[in-house]
C-alpha cells in the first residue's frame, strides 16, 4: 500500500515542501530511499526500524521504497525521520485515520522511539505557514521555538508512539500555547554594562553615535586599552529588537543549530567575534551544509573583528558586499542561497604591529615598512564603509580625575532610541532605516549645511588634510550627531565633532 506524508526542507532560511511517499511492495525485504537524499536521510533506515520496533509497532517485512519529492532537489538533514516512520506505519495500516494529511511532520528519531531536537524549526514553520500550512507535528525539544509563532496549530511530542496515538485518535493533546515575546524580552540580560568602562569618554561617545546612526566603527589603540570590552558593550546600548527582528535572527540561529532551545527565540542582539583565522566560508556562510556564516549570525547585532589587520585580506574584502547590501550570498554548485546579514561592524586594531606607535611611555619597535604593510591590509573600499574611526588611548583612568559619572548602558540606550526614532520618522516610506544607509540623493537632501557649515567643512579639508572620500561620511555622522542633539539642522558644531572621528583620514600614520 502507498502512503504520502508531508514534511519541509530548507534552502537557506526559506523552505519548500517535501512529500514523502512510502510504498510497500512484495519482494525480498529491503529499504530504499530515492530523491537525492543525503547520508543522514539514508541512514534513517536504521533509526526508523529500531524506533518503530521499540515503540512496539510492527515493522513491515516487505520491500520498502521511499521517495522524497521533488526528486531532483538535494535534501539534507535528519528531520525527515518522523515523517518516514509515520509513512511506513500508515502504509502498513497501523494508522488508519486520514488526519495526518493536514500535517507538516518534522522530527528526528532516536533508536528508542523518542524524538530528538532538530535544526531550523522556526524557519521551516514560518515558510510552511506562508505557503498556507496550518498544522504541524514537531519534537517537544523544539516546542519553545515554535511557540512564538501565532496563527498555527503545533503539536509537540516526545515520542513516536505519542505521535501515532494522536494521529489514530487514541489521545487528543492540546496544541502548543503561544508564548509572549514581550515577556521574554523584558528579562533580557547582558553581562556587561557601559558603566563598567572607565574613562574613554571619546570612544564611548563615538560608539553612542555609531549605534544611533547605524554606522560602522573602527577603534585604534594599543593592546589593553579596553577595545574588546567596549565592543562587547555595544549591543547593550542598541535599541531592543522588535519581534520581527527577533524572528529574523532566530531563523538564522535555528538553521545554524545554535539556538538556545530553553528560550526558543533570540532576545539579545547577537554579538559575534570570529577569530582572525576564520576562513571565508566560516565568515560568509557555506561549507558542506551551506550553513549561515558569522556575518549572518550577527544579523541585527554586532560583528566584532578584533585585530582587524590580522585577518586575511581576502577574507576582509568579502565583507564589502554584505556591508553594502545586508545580504550574504552563498553560492553552491547547484544553487545560490541568501542569508540576511545586516550587522553593525565594530573593528579594532593596534596602531602598528607592536602596538606602541605614538605611545608616550613605550617605544615602537616596528619598521616603517612593517607599519605600512600592517595598515595596507585594510583596503580603501573597505575603510569607505567604516564611518567612524576613533582612537582609544592606552592610559589607565586612575591618572585622571573625573567629573562625568560613568553612565549606564540604559541611559545611553535611551538617547540612542530617541535618535533612531527621529530617523524612522525621516525615512518613512523609503528603504533606508538609519543615517548610515542614506543614499547620495538622501545625503544631499537631509544633510544640507548652512554657509558657515560649508565653510567649516571646506577649511577642515585643507587644514586637517582630510582625504576626499571623507566627505559624505562626515556628513552622515554629523547628521546622526544632530539627531542625537535633537536638532533639525546640522550645525557647524555637529560637523566639527564629526571630523574628530576620522582618524584614518587624517593621515594618521604619515
Amino acid at each position, binding site marked *: 500500500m502507498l502512503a504520502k506524508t508531508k514534511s519541509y526542507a530548507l534552502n537557506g532560511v526559506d523552505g519548500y515542501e517535501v512529500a514523502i511517499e512510502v510504498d510497500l511492495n512484495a519482494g525480498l525485504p529491503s529499504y530504499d530511499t530515492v530523491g537525492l537524499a543525503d547520508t543522514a536521510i539514508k541512514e534513517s533506515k536504521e533509526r526508523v526500524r529500531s524506533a518503530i520496533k521499540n515503540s512496539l509497532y510492527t515493522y513491515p517485512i516487505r520491500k520498502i521504497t521511499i521517495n522524497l519529492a521533488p526528486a531532483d532537489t538535494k535534501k539534507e538533514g535528519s528531520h525527515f525521520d518522523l515523517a518516514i516512520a509515520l509513512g511506513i506505519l500508515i502504509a502498513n495500516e497501523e494508522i488508519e485515520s486520514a488526519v495526518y494529511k493536514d500535517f507538516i511532520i518534522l522530527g528526528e528519531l532516536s533508536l528508542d522511539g523518542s524524538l530528538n531536537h532538530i535544526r531550523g524549526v522556526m524557519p521551516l514553520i514560518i515558510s510552511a505557514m506562508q505557503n498556507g500550512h496550518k498544522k504541524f507535528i514537531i519534537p517537544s525539544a523544539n516546542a519553545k521555538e515554535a511557540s512564538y509563532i501565532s496563527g498555527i496549530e503545533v503539536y509537540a511530542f516526545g515520542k513516536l508512539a505519542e505521535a501515532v496515538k494522536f494521529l489514530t485518535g487514541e489521545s487528543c493533546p492540546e496544541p502548543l500555547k503561544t508564548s509572549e515575546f514581550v515577556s521574554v524580552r523584558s528579562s533580557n540580560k547582558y553581562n556587561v554594562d557601559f558603566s563598567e568602562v572607565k*574613562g574613554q*569618554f*571619546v570612544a*564611548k*561617545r563615538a560608539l553612542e553615535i555609531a549605534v544611533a546612526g547605524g554606522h560602522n566603527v573602527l577603534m585604534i*589603540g594599543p593592546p589593553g586599552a579596553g577595545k574588546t570590552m567596549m565592543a562587547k558593550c555595544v549591543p547593550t546600548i542598541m535599541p531592543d529588537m522588535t519581534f520581527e527582528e527577533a524572528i529574523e535572527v532566530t531563523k538564522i540561529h535555528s538553521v545554524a543549530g545554535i539556538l538556545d532551545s530553553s528560550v526558543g527565540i533570540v532576545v539579545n542582539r547577537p554579538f559575534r567575534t570570529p577569530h582572525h583565522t576564520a576562513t571565508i566560508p566560516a565568515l560568509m556562510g557555506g561549507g558542506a551544509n551551506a550553513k549561515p556564516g558569522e556575518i549572518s549570525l550577527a544579523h541585527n547585532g554586532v560583528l566584532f573583528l578584533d585585530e582587524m589587520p590580522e585577518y586575511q585580506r581576502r577574507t576582509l574584502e568579502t565583507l564589502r558586499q554584505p556591508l553594502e547590501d545586508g545580504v550574504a550570498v552563498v553560492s553552491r554548485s547547484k544553487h545560490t542561497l541568501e542569508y540576511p546579514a545586516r550587522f553593525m561592524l565594530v573593528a579594532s586594531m593596534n*596602531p602598528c604591529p607592536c602596538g606602541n*606607535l*605614538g*605611545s*608616550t611611555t613605550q*617605544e*615602537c619597535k616596528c*619598521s*616603517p*615598512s612593517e607599519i*605600512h604593510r600592517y595598515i595596507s591590509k585594510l583596503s580603501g573600499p573597505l575603510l569607505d564603509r567604516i564611518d567612524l574611526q576613533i*582612537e582609544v*588611548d*592606552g*592610559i589607565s*583612568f586612575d*591618572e*585622571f*580625575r*573625573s*567629573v*562625568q559619572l560613568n553612565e549606564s548602558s540604559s541611559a545611553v540606550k535611551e538617547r540612542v532610541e530617541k535618535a533612531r526614532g527621529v530617523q524612522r520618522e525621516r525615512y518613512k516610506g523609503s528603504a533606508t532605516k538609519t543615517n548610515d544607509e542614506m543614499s547620495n540623493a538622501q545625503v544631499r537632501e537631509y544633510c544640507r549645511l548652512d554657509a558657515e557649515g560649508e565653510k*567649516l567643512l571646506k*577649511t*577642515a579639508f585643507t*587644514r*586637517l588634510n582630510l582625504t576626499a572620500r571623507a566627505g559624505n561620511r562626515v556628513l552622515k555622522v554629523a547628521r546622526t*550627531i544632530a539627531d542625537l*542633539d535633537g536638532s533639525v539642522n546640522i550645525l*557647524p*558644531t*555637529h560637523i*566639527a*565633532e564629526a*571630523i*574628530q572621528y576620522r582618524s584614518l583620514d*587624517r593621515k*594618521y600614520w*604619515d
Partner: protein
Amino acid sequence: MNYDNNVKALIMLSLTEGYGARRKRYDSVDRACELYDDYSVADAMIGKMENAGVKVVTILDDAYPQKLRDIYDPPFTLYYKGDVGLLNESDSVAVVGTRKVSAYGKNIMSNFVPVFVKAGLTVISGLARGVDSIGHRICLENGGKTVAVVANGIDQCYPPENSELQNKISEQGLLISEYPLGVKPLQYHFPERNRIISALSRGVFIPEAGDRSGSLITADCAIEQGRDLFVVPGSIFSAQSVGCNKKIRDLQATITLSPQDVLDEMGLSCSKPHKRALQLDFNQQSVMNALGGESVHISELMVRSGMNTAQLSSVLTQLEIIGLIRKRQGNYYEAVPEL
C-alpha cells in the same frame, strides 16, 4: 639628442660596476674620456634615456653646477628629469633626517618647511621614507621647488610607496641621480648620494635623526664641504633625536629653534604672517586656557574645561582648523606655539 664621445665615455664609466671607486681612480676627467673605443653600450643607454624622457648633464657641461664641481669627489654624470635649472639655484636647503619620524618630527616639518618655501628656498632631499618624503611633500603642497637626489637609476623607485611622489617631483621639480637607468638602490649608493645632497645645498637642516641615521652622513659631508648644518634639539630620551643632540653636544651644528634661525644664517627673510587677531568664543577660549603650554589628554581637558565630550570634541576641531592647537596620537592635544 646627440652626445659627443666624451659624454658617451662618462656614461659608459657610470655603467660599470663599482663606479664610485673607479671614478676616484680616474681622478682626471680627461683620462676617463680616453678609456673606451667602442661606444655602442653608451648609444644603447642614450636610446633608453630618450624613451624615458631622461637627460644627462656631465661634469664637462657648462650647465653642471659649480657648487658640485667644487667638492672633493664630484659625480661625473647627473641623470635627470625635470627642471634642470634648479641645480644652479643658490638659495637651497637640504632637509634630511630619520626614516621613523615621531610626532615631534612631524610637527617640526610642518612648521619649518612652509616657511622655507615662502622664503624662496629650494628644498633638496633624498626621497627616502620619513623626513625626506615629508619634506618633499610639504614643499610641493606649498607650491615650492624641490630636488630629489636618489640612490638608484631614476627609472627605478625606492621606496616603492613613493612612486607617485617621485613622478610629481619629476614634473614639478627635479629628480636627479648619479646612476644610470636600471641601477638598483644598492646599500653603498646611499652614502655616495648623500654627498650630492649636501653639495647642492647651502645648508643642511635635520629635524630629527637617530643615533646611526644616514642623515648624519649627509651632515658630515656638509661639514666637510663647508655647508651650514642646522639641527633641532630633541628630548634626550627620544631615540629619534639622539643624532641631532650629539651634533649639538659636539659643537658641529647650529642649534635651530625656529625657521627664522635658518633664514637668518642664510641672509634671507620671510614676511612673518600677521599676528593672530582672532576672536575666540567663550568655549574656545576656555579650552585654550585649559591647555596651557603642555600637551593634555582629552579626559583631563574635560575636567579642566568642564565641558562634555560632545562639546569638547567640537571645540577642539574648531581650534584645530583655526590652527591654534593640534592633535597628537592617543587623544592628546597641545597648543601650537608661535615659532
